[in-house]
């Protein structure tokens, strides 16, 4: 009788330990999954930032933004340019503002994942008007 009672206590103890272990494991798996998602998101932001910086530099160094964007594979859509990359979408909006002495060309490069905006990189270039001597 005494043996049986001891065995039952051990069984209940084990079941309790496994129950708490399973609760902790559930929480840990959630934390691991979140860490993995955040790591992936950081990688995507990093990649989109690197792409945006390169595109901004190429646009800055060129007189013809359409050719530069087309060479990257961008397609013109509703007044802006779009390029689908691995896991995110890059959008470039080009705006020209004419002034008396030249043109101010502004670019806004945006990295988007689903509904979320990952990065926004504005860039501006001033193109002076040629004046006759």
């Amino acid at each position, binding site marked *: 009788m005494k043996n049986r009672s001891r065995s039952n206590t051990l069984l209940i103890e084990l079941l309790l330990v*496994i129950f708490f272990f399973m609760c902790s494991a559930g929480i840990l798996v959630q934390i691991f999954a979140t860490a993995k998602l955040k790591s992936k998101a950081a990688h995507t932001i990093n990649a989109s930032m690197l792409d945006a910086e390169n595109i901004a530099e190429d646009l800055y160094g060129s007189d013809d933004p359409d050719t530069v964007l087309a060479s990257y594979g961008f397609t013109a859509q509703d007044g802006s340019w779009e390029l689908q990359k691995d896991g995110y979408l890059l959008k470039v909006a080009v705006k020209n503002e004419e002034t008396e002495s030249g043109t101010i060309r502004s670019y806004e490069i945006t990295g988007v994942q689903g509904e979320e905006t990952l990065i926004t990189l504005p860039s501006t270039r001033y193109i002076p008007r040629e004046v006759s001597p």
Partner: protein
Amino acid sequence: MSKPVVSRSPRIIQSVFVLLLLSLFACLSAFLVTMGAQIYKNTVDSAEENNHSRIASAVIRSAVWAEDGGDVQIEKLSDDITALSVVNEYDGVKYYKRLYCAMDTDPLDGEPRSFLWESYNSEDVEFNPENGESLCELNGFVPSIENNMLTVELETSAGTKSTIRMALRTGGAVK
């Protein structure tokens, strides 16, 4: 005679059940620890790779932007080392800021690894790769200049390749 046999059977079942629970506990804990370690390793590796590519990109961009009034050149310094050099002249003396990839000893495990280095010398000091400062692990660093556009191909320690492009603004950008 038959009485003890009948009472022993549930006890055996109970012992087997306890053993099964114990083995289930052992298996689950081993699985959780292994999975946790693997995810932790992947997260740290990914963060390190992001970090190295960001450092390399930031160092190259800031070096060129800070000294872009000078000439940006590609120098073949030895069979293994091709440097991106930004040359400036002060009081008639030329100063070279060089970025290049060379071997260094990892401070954590003492193993030789490929690093991104930065050095700053005047023209009268002969270039020695070890006179610079190692910045971060980097396996590949291939700079080139075409039509006033600097392109640097990078390869991180994990083997991920990326490209940095920069429009050279005021510099001579001489090859």
